[in-house]
Protein backbone atom coordinates (compact mmCIF):
# COMPACT_ATOMS: atom_id res chain seq x y z
CA UNK A 1 0.00 0.00 0.00
CA UNK A 2 2.63 2.48 0.99
CA UNK A 3 4.61 1.74 -2.13
CA UNK A 4 1.76 2.44 -4.46
CA UNK A 5 0.83 5.53 -2.52
CA UNK A 6 4.28 6.94 -2.89
CA UNK A 7 4.31 6.28 -6.57
CA UNK A 8 0.94 7.88 -7.03
CA UNK A 9 2.15 11.01 -5.34
CA UNK A 10 5.05 11.62 -7.66
CA UNK A 11 4.72 14.85 -9.56
CA UNK A 12 4.10 12.99 -12.78
CA UNK A 13 1.59 10.43 -11.72
CA UNK A 14 -1.56 12.46 -11.85
CA UNK A 15 -3.59 9.31 -11.85
CA UNK A 16 -4.48 9.44 -8.19
CA UNK A 17 -7.12 12.17 -8.42
CA UNK A 18 -9.24 10.26 -10.84
CA UNK A 19 -8.46 6.71 -9.82
CA UNK A 20 -11.58 4.66 -9.60
CA UNK A 21 -13.62 7.07 -11.65
CA UNK A 22 -14.42 5.22 -14.82
CA UNK A 23 -14.34 7.53 -17.80
CA UNK A 24 -17.54 7.58 -19.72
CA UNK A 25 -17.07 5.35 -22.67
CA UNK A 26 -19.03 5.95 -25.77
CA UNK A 27 -21.70 3.26 -25.91
CA UNK A 28 -21.81 1.20 -28.98
CA UNK A 29 -18.94 1.71 -31.36
CA UNK A 30 -15.47 1.14 -30.09
CA UNK A 31 -12.50 1.58 -32.36
CA UNK A 32 -10.80 -1.59 -33.51
CA UNK A 33 -7.33 -2.64 -32.47
CA UNK A 34 -5.83 -1.14 -35.62
CA UNK A 35 -7.25 2.30 -34.96
CA UNK A 36 -6.16 2.18 -31.33
CA UNK A 37 -2.66 1.18 -32.36
CA UNK A 38 -2.55 4.06 -34.83
CA UNK A 39 -3.41 6.50 -32.05
CA UNK A 40 -0.95 5.04 -29.55
CA UNK A 41 2.07 4.01 -31.57
CA UNK A 42 3.65 7.34 -32.64
CA UNK A 43 3.96 8.50 -29.02
CA UNK A 44 4.95 5.05 -27.79
CA UNK A 45 7.68 4.53 -30.39
CA UNK A 46 9.08 8.01 -29.81
CA UNK A 47 9.02 7.50 -26.06
CA UNK A 48 10.67 4.06 -26.14
CA UNK A 49 13.40 5.06 -28.60
CA UNK A 50 14.39 8.41 -27.15
CA UNK A 51 13.45 8.22 -23.47
CA UNK A 52 13.30 4.65 -22.19
CA UNK A 53 16.16 3.16 -24.17
CA UNK A 54 18.61 6.00 -23.35
CA UNK A 55 17.71 5.99 -19.67
CA UNK A 56 18.04 2.19 -19.38
CA UNK A 57 21.23 2.33 -21.42
CA UNK A 58 22.68 4.89 -19.01
CA UNK A 59 21.79 2.67 -16.07
CA UNK A 60 23.46 -0.29 -17.81
CA UNK A 61 26.60 1.58 -18.89
CA UNK A 62 27.16 2.87 -15.35
CA UNK A 63 28.49 -0.60 -14.47
CA UNK A 64 31.15 -0.64 -17.19
CA UNK A 65 34.39 1.03 -18.01
CA UNK A 66 33.81 2.32 -21.50
CA UNK A 67 35.14 4.98 -23.86
CA UNK A 68 31.95 5.02 -25.92
CA UNK A 69 33.35 3.24 -28.97
CA UNK A 70 32.56 -0.15 -30.47
CA UNK A 71 28.85 -0.74 -30.14
CA UNK A 72 28.29 -2.00 -26.62
CA UNK A 73 30.33 -1.69 -23.43
CA UNK A 74 32.07 -4.95 -22.48
CA UNK A 75 34.44 -4.17 -19.62
CA UNK A 76 32.16 -4.88 -16.66
CA UNK A 77 33.46 -3.30 -13.44
CA UNK A 78 30.53 -3.70 -11.08
CA UNK A 79 30.14 -0.82 -8.68
CA UNK A 80 33.60 0.62 -9.32
CA UNK A 81 32.27 3.77 -11.00
CA UNK A 82 30.07 4.48 -8.01
CA UNK A 83 32.95 3.89 -5.62
CA UNK A 84 35.12 6.26 -7.64
CA UNK A 85 32.33 8.79 -7.50
CA UNK A 86 32.07 8.74 -3.72
CA UNK A 87 35.78 9.52 -3.49
CA UNK A 88 35.68 12.12 -6.26
CA UNK A 89 36.28 15.52 -4.66
CA UNK A 90 34.54 17.28 -7.55
CA UNK A 91 31.42 15.17 -7.18
CA UNK A 92 31.28 15.73 -3.41
CA UNK A 93 31.77 19.45 -3.91
CA UNK A 94 28.94 19.39 -6.49
CA UNK A 95 26.65 18.02 -3.78
CA UNK A 96 27.81 20.69 -1.36
CA UNK A 97 27.06 23.42 -3.91
CA UNK A 98 23.57 21.99 -4.49
CA UNK A 99 22.99 22.32 -0.76
CA UNK A 100 24.45 25.83 -0.66
CA UNK A 101 22.33 27.11 -3.55
CA UNK A 102 19.24 25.46 -2.05
CA UNK A 103 19.81 27.15 1.29
CA UNK A 104 20.47 30.50 -0.37
CA UNK A 105 17.33 30.13 -2.50
CA UNK A 106 15.15 29.41 0.49
CA UNK A 107 16.75 32.20 2.51
CA UNK A 108 16.93 34.91 -0.16
CA UNK A 109 15.36 34.18 -3.53
CA UNK A 110 12.01 32.73 -2.46
CA UNK A 111 11.35 35.31 0.30
CA UNK A 112 12.12 38.07 -2.19
CA UNK A 113 9.68 36.56 -4.69
CA UNK A 114 7.11 36.11 -1.94
CA UNK A 115 7.45 39.70 -0.74
CA UNK A 116 7.07 41.09 -4.22
CA UNK A 117 4.07 38.85 -4.85
CA UNK A 118 2.35 40.12 -1.69
CA UNK A 119 3.15 43.64 -2.79
CA UNK A 120 1.82 43.15 -6.30
CA UNK A 121 -1.33 41.59 -4.95
CA UNK A 122 -2.29 44.97 -3.51
CA UNK A 123 -4.29 47.26 -5.65
CA UNK A 124 -1.90 49.87 -7.01
CA UNK A 125 -1.82 51.64 -10.31
CA UNK A 126 0.82 50.05 -12.50
CA UNK A 127 0.97 46.72 -10.73
CA UNK A 128 0.24 44.78 -13.94
CA UNK A 129 3.21 46.43 -15.60
CA UNK A 130 5.50 45.41 -12.73
CA UNK A 131 4.15 41.87 -12.78
CA UNK A 132 4.87 41.59 -16.52
CA UNK A 133 8.32 43.11 -16.14
CA UNK A 134 9.40 40.83 -13.31
CA UNK A 135 8.57 37.76 -15.37
CA UNK A 136 10.76 38.86 -18.30
CA UNK A 137 14.04 37.25 -17.12
CA UNK A 138 12.29 33.89 -16.88
CA UNK A 139 11.31 33.88 -20.55
CA UNK A 140 14.86 34.53 -21.77
CA UNK A 141 17.05 31.64 -22.88
CA UNK A 142 19.46 30.53 -20.15
CA UNK A 143 22.44 30.25 -22.47
CA UNK A 144 21.84 33.72 -23.93
CA UNK A 145 21.36 35.19 -20.47
CA UNK A 146 24.65 33.59 -19.44
CA UNK A 147 26.53 35.29 -22.28
CA UNK A 148 25.07 38.64 -21.23
CA UNK A 149 26.16 38.13 -17.62
CA UNK A 150 29.60 36.99 -18.71
CA UNK A 151 30.03 40.39 -20.31
CA UNK A 152 28.57 42.19 -17.31
CA UNK A 153 30.97 40.42 -14.96
CA UNK A 154 33.93 40.29 -17.30
CA UNK A 155 37.21 41.33 -15.70
CA UNK A 156 38.32 44.98 -15.81
CA UNK A 157 36.05 46.45 -18.46
CA UNK A 158 32.83 44.74 -17.38
CA UNK A 159 29.71 46.66 -16.54
CA UNK A 160 29.64 45.50 -12.90
CA UNK A 161 33.16 46.80 -12.34
CA UNK A 162 32.26 50.10 -13.99
CA UNK A 163 29.34 50.52 -11.59
CA UNK A 164 31.54 49.77 -8.59
CA UNK A 165 34.33 52.08 -9.75
CA UNK A 166 31.79 54.86 -9.31
CA UNK A 167 32.00 54.03 -5.61
CA UNK A 168 35.78 53.91 -5.73
CA UNK A 169 35.99 50.10 -5.64
CA UNK A 170 38.53 48.42 -7.88
CA UNK A 171 37.89 45.52 -10.22
CA UNK A 172 36.58 42.34 -8.61
CA UNK A 173 37.18 38.87 -10.02
CA UNK A 174 33.46 38.11 -10.11
CA UNK A 175 33.72 34.88 -12.03
CA UNK A 176 37.40 34.13 -11.48
CA UNK A 177 37.46 34.23 -7.68
CA UNK A 178 37.00 30.71 -6.34
CA UNK A 179 35.18 31.85 -3.23
CA UNK A 180 33.01 34.45 -4.90
CA UNK A 181 31.91 32.76 -8.11
CA UNK A 182 29.15 30.60 -6.63
CA UNK A 183 27.53 33.63 -5.02
CA UNK A 184 27.65 35.57 -8.28
CA UNK A 185 25.98 32.60 -9.95
CA UNK A 186 23.36 32.53 -7.24
CA UNK A 187 22.68 36.22 -7.87
CA UNK A 188 22.19 35.52 -11.57
CA UNK A 189 19.92 32.56 -10.78
CA UNK A 190 17.86 34.86 -8.58
CA UNK A 191 17.60 37.41 -11.38
CA UNK A 192 16.48 34.68 -13.77
CA UNK A 193 14.01 32.75 -11.62
CA UNK A 194 12.47 34.95 -8.92
CA UNK A 195 9.77 36.14 -11.35
CA UNK A 196 8.63 32.57 -11.93
CA UNK A 197 8.19 31.93 -8.21
CA UNK A 198 6.56 35.31 -7.82
CA UNK A 199 3.89 34.42 -10.38
CA UNK A 200 3.19 31.14 -8.59
CA UNK A 201 2.86 32.99 -5.26
CA UNK A 202 0.57 35.56 -6.84
CA UNK A 203 -1.66 32.79 -8.18
CA UNK A 204 -1.66 31.12 -4.77
CA UNK A 205 -2.54 34.38 -3.04
CA UNK A 206 -5.30 35.16 -5.49
CA UNK A 207 -6.91 31.79 -4.87
CA UNK A 208 -7.52 32.64 -1.19
CA UNK A 209 -11.13 33.80 -0.91
CA UNK A 210 -11.43 37.43 0.21
CA UNK A 211 -14.36 36.46 2.46
CA UNK A 212 -11.90 34.84 4.87
CA UNK A 213 -10.15 38.17 5.35
CA UNK A 214 -13.39 40.07 5.66
CA UNK A 215 -14.73 37.67 8.27
CA UNK A 216 -11.49 37.87 10.26
CA UNK A 217 -11.51 41.66 10.06
CA UNK A 218 -15.04 41.73 11.43
CA UNK A 219 -13.71 39.69 14.34
CA UNK A 220 -11.08 42.35 14.86
CA UNK A 221 -7.97 40.66 13.45
CA UNK A 222 -5.00 42.91 12.73
CA UNK A 223 -3.05 42.94 9.50
CA UNK A 224 -0.29 40.89 11.08
CA UNK A 225 -2.76 38.30 12.34
CA UNK A 226 -4.43 38.06 8.94
CA UNK A 227 -1.05 37.28 7.43
CA UNK A 228 -0.03 34.73 10.08
CA UNK A 229 -3.30 32.88 10.34
CA UNK A 230 -4.79 33.12 6.86
CA UNK A 231 -2.27 34.04 4.18
CA UNK A 232 0.66 31.94 5.35
CA UNK A 233 -1.17 28.66 6.06
CA UNK A 234 -3.27 28.85 2.92
CA UNK A 235 -0.18 29.64 0.82
CA UNK A 236 1.45 26.53 2.30
CA UNK A 237 0.98 24.25 -0.72
CA UNK A 238 2.35 26.89 -3.09
CA UNK A 239 5.31 27.61 -0.84
CA UNK A 240 6.14 23.94 -0.57
CA UNK A 241 5.89 23.33 -4.29
CA UNK A 242 8.19 26.26 -5.12
CA UNK A 243 10.82 24.90 -2.73
CA UNK A 244 10.48 21.56 -4.50
CA UNK A 245 10.87 23.07 -7.97
CA UNK A 246 13.80 25.15 -6.80
CA UNK A 247 15.68 22.11 -5.47
CA UNK A 248 15.00 19.96 -8.52
CA UNK A 249 16.12 22.83 -10.77
CA UNK A 250 19.31 23.21 -8.75
CA UNK A 251 20.16 19.51 -9.00
CA UNK A 252 19.85 19.65 -12.78
CA UNK A 253 21.48 23.00 -13.37
CA UNK A 254 23.62 23.12 -16.52
CA UNK A 255 23.10 25.72 -19.28
CA UNK A 256 23.58 28.90 -17.29
CA UNK A 257 26.66 27.81 -15.37
CA UNK A 258 28.29 26.00 -18.28
CA UNK A 259 28.13 29.06 -20.51
CA UNK A 260 29.16 31.40 -17.69
CA UNK A 261 32.17 29.57 -16.28
CA UNK A 262 32.28 26.01 -17.66
CA UNK A 263 32.31 25.11 -13.95
CA UNK A 264 35.54 26.96 -13.23
CA UNK A 265 37.76 28.31 -11.91
CA UNK A 266 39.18 24.99 -10.69
CA UNK A 267 35.72 23.37 -10.47
CA UNK A 268 34.62 26.08 -8.02
CA UNK A 269 31.25 26.56 -9.73
CA UNK A 270 30.84 23.10 -11.25
CA UNK A 271 27.42 21.42 -11.14
CA UNK A 272 26.59 17.73 -11.26
CA UNK A 273 25.51 18.02 -14.88
CA UNK A 274 28.72 19.81 -15.86
CA UNK A 275 30.84 17.12 -14.16
CA UNK A 276 28.89 14.53 -16.13
CA UNK A 277 29.28 16.45 -19.37
CA UNK A 278 33.02 16.89 -18.88
CA UNK A 279 33.57 13.23 -18.00
CA UNK A 280 31.40 11.98 -20.84
CA UNK A 281 31.97 14.31 -23.75
CA UNK A 282 35.43 15.68 -23.02
CA UNK A 283 37.23 12.78 -21.35
CA UNK A 284 35.21 9.97 -22.97
CA UNK A 285 34.72 8.24 -19.61
CA UNK A 286 31.24 7.16 -20.65
CA UNK A 287 30.86 4.59 -17.88
CA UNK A 288 31.77 7.01 -15.14
CA UNK A 289 29.66 9.78 -16.67
CA UNK A 290 26.70 7.40 -16.77
CA UNK A 291 27.19 6.65 -13.09
CA UNK A 292 27.10 10.39 -12.44
CA UNK A 293 23.88 10.77 -14.42
CA UNK A 294 22.32 7.89 -12.47
CA UNK A 295 23.39 9.63 -9.27
CA UNK A 296 21.65 12.78 -10.47
CA UNK A 297 18.51 10.81 -11.22
CA UNK A 298 18.57 9.06 -7.84
CA UNK A 299 19.19 12.32 -6.05
CA UNK A 300 16.11 13.89 -7.70
CA UNK A 301 14.05 10.76 -7.14
CA UNK A 302 14.95 10.29 -3.47
CA UNK A 303 14.40 13.95 -2.79
CA UNK A 304 11.05 13.84 -4.60
CA UNK A 305 9.92 10.76 -2.66
CA UNK A 306 10.94 12.10 0.74
CA UNK A 307 9.55 15.52 0.01
CA UNK A 308 6.27 14.11 -1.30
CA UNK A 309 5.88 11.86 1.70
CA UNK A 310 6.82 14.21 4.51
CA UNK A 311 6.15 17.67 3.16
CA UNK A 312 3.73 17.65 0.26
CA UNK A 313 1.83 14.72 1.72
CA UNK A 314 0.05 17.17 3.97
CA UNK A 315 -1.56 18.91 1.05
CA UNK A 316 -4.63 16.95 0.13
CA UNK A 317 -5.12 18.93 -3.03
CA UNK A 318 -1.81 20.64 -3.52
CA UNK A 319 -0.50 22.88 -6.21
CA UNK A 320 0.57 19.75 -8.06
CA UNK A 321 -2.89 19.23 -9.40
CA UNK A 322 -3.68 22.87 -10.07
CA UNK A 323 -3.27 22.68 -13.83
CA UNK A 324 -5.80 19.88 -13.94
CA UNK A 325 -8.52 22.43 -13.87
CA UNK A 326 -7.58 25.51 -11.95
CA UNK A 327 -8.37 24.14 -8.52
CA UNK A 328 -6.28 25.22 -5.54
Amino acid at each position, binding site marked *: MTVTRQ*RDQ*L*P*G*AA*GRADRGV*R*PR*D*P*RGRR*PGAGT*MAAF*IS*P*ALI*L*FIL*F*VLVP*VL*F*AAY*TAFFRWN*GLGGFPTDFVGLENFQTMLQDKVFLADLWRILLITILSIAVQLPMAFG*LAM*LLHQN*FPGRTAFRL*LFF*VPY*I*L*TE*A*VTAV*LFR*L*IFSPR*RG*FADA*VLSGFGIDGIGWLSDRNLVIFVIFGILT*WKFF*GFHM*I*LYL*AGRQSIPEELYEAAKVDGATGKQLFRHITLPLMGPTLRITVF*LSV*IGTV*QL*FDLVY*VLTKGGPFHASETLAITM*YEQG*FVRNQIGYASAL*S*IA*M*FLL*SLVFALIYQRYVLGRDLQGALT*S*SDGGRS
Partner: protein
Amino acid sequence: MSVNTARAKLLRNTGFYIAAFLGTVFVATPILFALLGGFKDNQQLRENALGLPNPWHVGNYLDVLADGTFWRQLFNSVFIALVTTFIVVAAAAAVAYVFARFQFRGREGLFTLFAAGMMFPFTVAVLPLFIILRTFEMLNSPLGVILPQAAFGLPLTIIILRSFFRQIPGEVEEAATIDGAGPWRFFLQILLPMSRPVIATVSVLALVGSWNSYLLPLVVLSKPTWQTLPLGVTQFQGEYATETAKVLAFVMLAMLPALIFYAFAERQLISGLTSGGTKG
Protein backbone atom coordinates in the same frame (compact mmCIF):
# COMPACT_ATOMS: atom_id res chain seq x y z
CA MET B 1 -11.14 60.75 5.15
CA SER B 2 -9.13 61.54 8.24
CA VAL B 3 -5.59 62.84 8.09
CA ASN B 4 -4.33 59.62 9.61
CA THR B 5 -5.69 57.26 6.99
CA ALA B 6 -4.54 59.60 4.24
CA ARG B 7 -1.05 59.54 5.69
CA ALA B 8 -1.14 55.75 6.06
CA LYS B 9 -2.19 55.44 2.45
CA LEU B 10 0.59 57.76 1.31
CA LEU B 11 3.10 55.71 3.28
CA ARG B 12 1.77 52.48 1.84
CA ASN B 13 1.95 53.87 -1.68
CA THR B 14 5.47 55.15 -1.18
CA GLY B 15 6.59 51.78 0.21
CA PHE B 16 5.03 50.02 -2.75
CA TYR B 17 6.70 52.20 -5.32
CA ILE B 18 10.10 52.05 -3.64
CA ALA B 19 10.05 48.23 -3.59
CA ALA B 20 8.69 48.05 -7.12
CA PHE B 21 11.31 50.52 -8.27
CA LEU B 22 14.12 48.46 -6.73
CA GLY B 23 12.74 45.34 -8.40
CA THR B 24 12.60 47.17 -11.70
CA VAL B 25 16.21 48.35 -11.44
CA PHE B 26 17.29 44.79 -10.58
CA VAL B 27 15.48 43.26 -13.53
CA ALA B 28 15.98 45.94 -16.14
CA THR B 29 19.63 46.91 -15.66
CA PRO B 30 21.20 43.88 -17.39
CA ILE B 31 18.79 44.11 -20.30
CA LEU B 32 19.29 47.85 -20.71
CA PHE B 33 23.04 47.26 -20.58
CA ALA B 34 22.72 44.87 -23.53
CA LEU B 35 20.34 47.13 -25.44
CA LEU B 36 22.35 50.33 -24.97
CA GLY B 37 25.73 48.60 -25.11
CA GLY B 38 24.85 47.39 -28.58
CA PHE B 39 24.62 51.04 -29.65
CA LYS B 40 28.08 51.93 -28.34
CA ASP B 41 31.50 51.22 -29.75
CA ASN B 42 34.10 49.41 -27.68
CA GLN B 43 35.83 52.58 -26.58
CA GLN B 44 32.55 53.99 -25.29
CA LEU B 45 31.85 50.73 -23.48
CA ARG B 46 35.15 51.10 -21.65
CA GLU B 47 35.02 54.80 -20.91
CA ASN B 48 31.31 55.44 -20.70
CA ALA B 49 29.89 52.17 -19.41
CA LEU B 50 26.99 53.68 -17.52
CA GLY B 51 25.81 56.55 -19.71
CA LEU B 52 23.79 56.68 -22.88
CA PRO B 53 25.60 55.99 -26.14
CA ASN B 54 27.22 59.15 -27.51
CA PRO B 55 27.11 59.08 -30.45
CA TRP B 56 24.67 56.24 -31.14
CA HIS B 57 26.21 53.50 -33.26
CA VAL B 58 23.83 51.40 -35.26
CA GLY B 59 26.76 49.59 -36.83
CA ASN B 60 26.83 46.66 -34.38
CA TYR B 61 23.19 45.78 -34.93
CA LEU B 62 23.47 46.30 -38.67
CA ASP B 63 26.57 44.08 -38.84
CA VAL B 64 24.78 41.24 -37.09
CA LEU B 65 21.67 41.66 -39.23
CA ALA B 66 23.67 41.87 -42.45
CA ASP B 67 25.52 38.66 -41.64
CA GLY B 68 23.66 35.55 -42.78
CA THR B 69 24.64 33.61 -39.65
CA PHE B 70 22.09 35.31 -37.40
CA TRP B 71 19.24 34.73 -39.82
CA ARG B 72 20.20 31.12 -40.46
CA GLN B 73 20.35 30.40 -36.73
CA LEU B 74 17.07 32.20 -36.21
CA PHE B 75 15.50 30.10 -38.95
CA ASN B 76 16.96 26.90 -37.44
CA SER B 77 15.65 27.75 -33.98
CA VAL B 78 12.18 28.55 -35.29
CA PHE B 79 12.07 25.52 -37.57
CA ILE B 80 13.23 23.09 -34.88
CA ALA B 81 10.84 24.60 -32.31
CA LEU B 82 7.84 24.43 -34.65
CA VAL B 83 8.45 20.87 -35.82
CA THR B 84 9.14 19.70 -32.25
CA THR B 85 5.91 21.31 -31.08
CA PHE B 86 3.89 19.82 -33.90
CA ILE B 87 5.23 16.32 -33.30
CA VAL B 88 4.90 16.32 -29.52
CA VAL B 89 1.41 17.83 -29.51
CA ALA B 90 0.10 15.57 -32.28
CA ALA B 91 1.54 12.36 -30.82
CA ALA B 92 0.53 13.26 -27.27
CA ALA B 93 -2.99 14.32 -28.26
CA ALA B 94 -3.60 11.02 -30.06
CA VAL B 95 -2.47 8.86 -27.17
CA ALA B 96 -4.11 11.11 -24.56
CA TYR B 97 -7.40 10.72 -26.47
CA VAL B 98 -7.13 6.94 -26.14
CA PHE B 99 -6.19 7.21 -22.44
CA ALA B 100 -9.06 9.57 -21.73
CA ARG B 101 -11.90 7.99 -23.68
CA PHE B 102 -11.39 4.24 -24.08
CA GLN B 103 -11.17 1.28 -21.75
CA PHE B 104 -8.71 -1.43 -22.59
CA ARG B 105 -6.46 -3.80 -20.69
CA GLY B 106 -3.13 -2.33 -19.68
CA ARG B 107 -4.32 1.23 -20.11
CA GLU B 108 -3.34 2.43 -16.65
CA GLY B 109 0.00 0.65 -16.86
CA LEU B 110 0.78 2.29 -20.18
CA PHE B 111 -0.23 5.68 -18.85
CA THR B 112 1.96 5.22 -15.78
CA LEU B 113 4.86 4.34 -18.05
CA PHE B 114 4.51 7.65 -19.88
CA ALA B 115 3.94 9.56 -16.67
CA ALA B 116 7.05 8.00 -15.14
CA GLY B 117 8.98 9.73 -17.91
CA MET B 118 8.48 12.92 -15.91
CA MET B 119 11.00 11.63 -13.43
CA PHE B 120 13.85 11.41 -15.90
CA PRO B 121 15.65 14.67 -16.26
CA PHE B 122 16.82 15.14 -19.80
CA THR B 123 20.41 15.49 -18.61
CA VAL B 124 20.41 11.87 -17.42
CA ALA B 125 19.80 10.62 -20.95
CA VAL B 126 21.92 12.98 -23.00
CA LEU B 127 25.00 10.76 -23.09
CA PRO B 128 23.30 7.57 -24.34
CA LEU B 129 21.15 9.73 -26.62
CA PHE B 130 24.30 11.00 -28.24
CA ILE B 131 25.51 7.44 -28.78
CA ILE B 132 22.14 6.35 -30.17
CA LEU B 133 21.93 9.35 -32.50
CA ARG B 134 25.48 8.65 -33.67
CA THR B 135 24.49 5.06 -34.44
CA PHE B 136 21.42 6.21 -36.42
CA GLU B 137 23.58 8.83 -38.17
CA MET B 138 21.33 11.60 -36.91
CA LEU B 139 24.11 13.84 -35.61
CA ASN B 140 24.17 17.26 -37.26
CA SER B 141 20.63 16.72 -38.48
CA PRO B 142 17.68 18.72 -37.14
CA LEU B 143 15.86 15.44 -36.47
CA GLY B 144 18.55 14.55 -33.95
CA VAL B 145 17.36 17.48 -31.87
CA ILE B 146 13.66 17.38 -32.75
CA LEU B 147 12.85 13.76 -31.96
CA PRO B 148 14.49 13.53 -28.50
CA GLN B 149 12.99 16.89 -27.53
CA ALA B 150 9.55 15.75 -28.63
CA ALA B 151 9.99 12.45 -26.78
CA PHE B 152 10.96 14.16 -23.53
CA GLY B 153 8.07 16.58 -23.92
CA LEU B 154 5.55 13.72 -24.16
CA PRO B 155 4.92 12.92 -20.46
CA LEU B 156 3.86 16.40 -19.38
CA THR B 157 1.88 17.02 -22.59
CA ILE B 158 0.05 13.70 -22.26
CA ILE B 159 -0.81 14.33 -18.60
CA ILE B 160 -2.21 17.79 -19.27
CA LEU B 161 -4.13 16.78 -22.41
CA ARG B 162 -5.55 13.60 -20.87
CA SER B 163 -7.00 15.40 -17.89
CA PHE B 164 -8.55 18.00 -20.19
CA PHE B 165 -10.00 15.40 -22.59
CA ARG B 166 -11.60 13.57 -19.67
CA GLN B 167 -13.58 16.66 -18.78
CA ILE B 168 -15.33 16.78 -22.12
CA PRO B 169 -18.76 15.21 -21.48
CA GLY B 170 -19.43 11.77 -22.93
CA GLU B 171 -22.64 13.11 -24.47
CA VAL B 172 -20.60 15.08 -27.00
CA GLU B 173 -19.00 11.88 -28.19
CA GLU B 174 -22.28 9.97 -28.16
CA ALA B 175 -23.91 12.64 -30.26
CA ALA B 176 -21.03 12.55 -32.72
CA THR B 177 -21.21 8.75 -32.87
CA ILE B 178 -24.93 8.84 -33.55
CA ASP B 179 -24.27 11.28 -36.37
CA GLY B 180 -21.91 8.71 -37.82
CA ALA B 181 -18.54 10.14 -36.85
CA GLY B 182 -15.85 7.52 -36.26
CA PRO B 183 -12.99 7.97 -33.79
CA TRP B 184 -10.82 9.77 -36.34
CA ARG B 185 -13.44 12.33 -37.24
CA PHE B 186 -14.41 12.85 -33.62
CA PHE B 187 -10.76 13.36 -32.67
CA LEU B 188 -9.82 15.69 -35.52
CA GLN B 189 -13.02 17.66 -36.02
CA ILE B 190 -14.59 17.80 -32.58
CA LEU B 191 -12.17 16.99 -29.76
CA LEU B 192 -9.16 19.00 -30.98
CA PRO B 193 -11.12 22.16 -31.86
CA MET B 194 -12.87 21.95 -28.49
CA SER B 195 -9.50 21.73 -26.77
CA ARG B 196 -7.96 24.83 -28.29
CA PRO B 197 -7.02 26.54 -24.98
CA VAL B 198 -5.20 23.52 -23.59
CA ILE B 199 -3.54 22.84 -26.95
CA ALA B 200 -2.28 26.42 -26.79
CA THR B 201 -0.88 25.81 -23.31
CA VAL B 202 1.02 22.65 -24.21
CA SER B 203 2.21 24.20 -27.48
CA VAL B 204 3.67 27.15 -25.60
CA LEU B 205 5.47 24.75 -23.28
CA ALA B 206 6.95 22.78 -26.18
CA LEU B 207 7.86 25.89 -28.19
CA VAL B 208 9.60 27.61 -25.31
CA GLY B 209 11.34 24.42 -24.24
CA SER B 210 12.75 23.88 -27.70
CA TRP B 211 13.62 27.54 -28.22
CA ASN B 212 15.65 27.60 -24.99
CA SER B 213 17.23 24.20 -25.37
CA TYR B 214 21.01 24.27 -25.21
CA LEU B 215 22.53 20.98 -24.04
CA LEU B 216 21.06 18.75 -26.76
CA PRO B 217 21.92 21.08 -29.68
CA LEU B 218 25.38 21.53 -28.14
CA VAL B 219 25.94 17.80 -28.26
CA VAL B 220 24.18 16.99 -31.53
CA LEU B 221 24.86 19.98 -33.79
CA SER B 222 28.61 20.38 -34.08
CA LYS B 223 28.47 21.69 -37.65
CA PRO B 224 27.16 25.22 -38.24
CA THR B 225 24.49 24.29 -40.82
CA TRP B 226 21.71 23.56 -38.33
CA GLN B 227 22.99 25.34 -35.24
CA THR B 228 20.39 27.23 -33.24
CA LEU B 229 20.49 30.70 -31.69
CA PRO B 230 21.59 29.74 -28.16
CA LEU B 231 24.58 27.91 -29.64
CA GLY B 232 25.16 30.79 -32.02
CA VAL B 233 25.26 33.38 -29.26
CA THR B 234 27.80 31.45 -27.19
CA GLN B 235 29.98 30.86 -30.23
CA PHE B 236 29.70 34.44 -31.38
CA GLN B 237 31.04 35.49 -28.02
CA GLY B 238 33.96 33.14 -28.42
CA GLU B 239 34.77 34.50 -31.87
CA TYR B 240 34.37 38.18 -31.07
CA ALA B 241 35.79 38.09 -27.57
CA THR B 242 37.31 41.54 -27.94
CA GLU B 243 34.30 43.19 -29.57
CA THR B 244 31.96 43.35 -26.61
CA ALA B 245 29.61 45.86 -28.23
CA LYS B 246 28.99 43.58 -31.16
CA VAL B 247 28.33 40.60 -28.89
CA LEU B 248 25.84 42.70 -26.91
CA ALA B 249 24.02 43.55 -30.13
CA PHE B 250 23.87 39.84 -30.99
CA VAL B 251 22.63 38.97 -27.48
CA MET B 252 19.93 41.63 -27.71
CA LEU B 253 18.77 40.44 -31.13
CA ALA B 254 18.70 36.84 -29.90
CA MET B 255 16.47 37.89 -27.00
CA LEU B 256 14.15 39.90 -29.19
CA PRO B 257 11.96 37.07 -30.59
CA ALA B 258 11.11 35.84 -27.08
CA LEU B 259 10.39 39.39 -25.94
CA ILE B 260 8.12 40.04 -28.92
CA PHE B 261 6.32 36.74 -28.36
CA TYR B 262 5.88 37.67 -24.70
CA ALA B 263 4.52 41.09 -25.61
CA PHE B 264 1.83 39.54 -27.81
CA ALA B 265 1.00 36.33 -25.95
CA GLU B 266 1.85 37.26 -22.39
CA ARG B 267 -1.14 35.49 -20.85
CA GLN B 268 -0.68 32.21 -22.70
CA LEU B 269 3.04 32.30 -22.00
CA ILE B 270 2.69 32.87 -18.27
CA SER B 271 -0.11 30.34 -17.78
CA GLY B 272 1.64 27.80 -19.99
CA LEU B 273 5.01 28.11 -18.32
CA THR B 274 3.68 28.08 -14.79
CA SER B 275 1.43 25.08 -15.45
CA GLY B 276 4.54 23.29 -16.66
CA GLY B 277 6.27 24.38 -13.50
CA THR B 278 3.65 23.14 -11.11
CA LYS B 279 3.60 19.84 -12.93
CA GLY B 280 7.28 19.36 -13.33
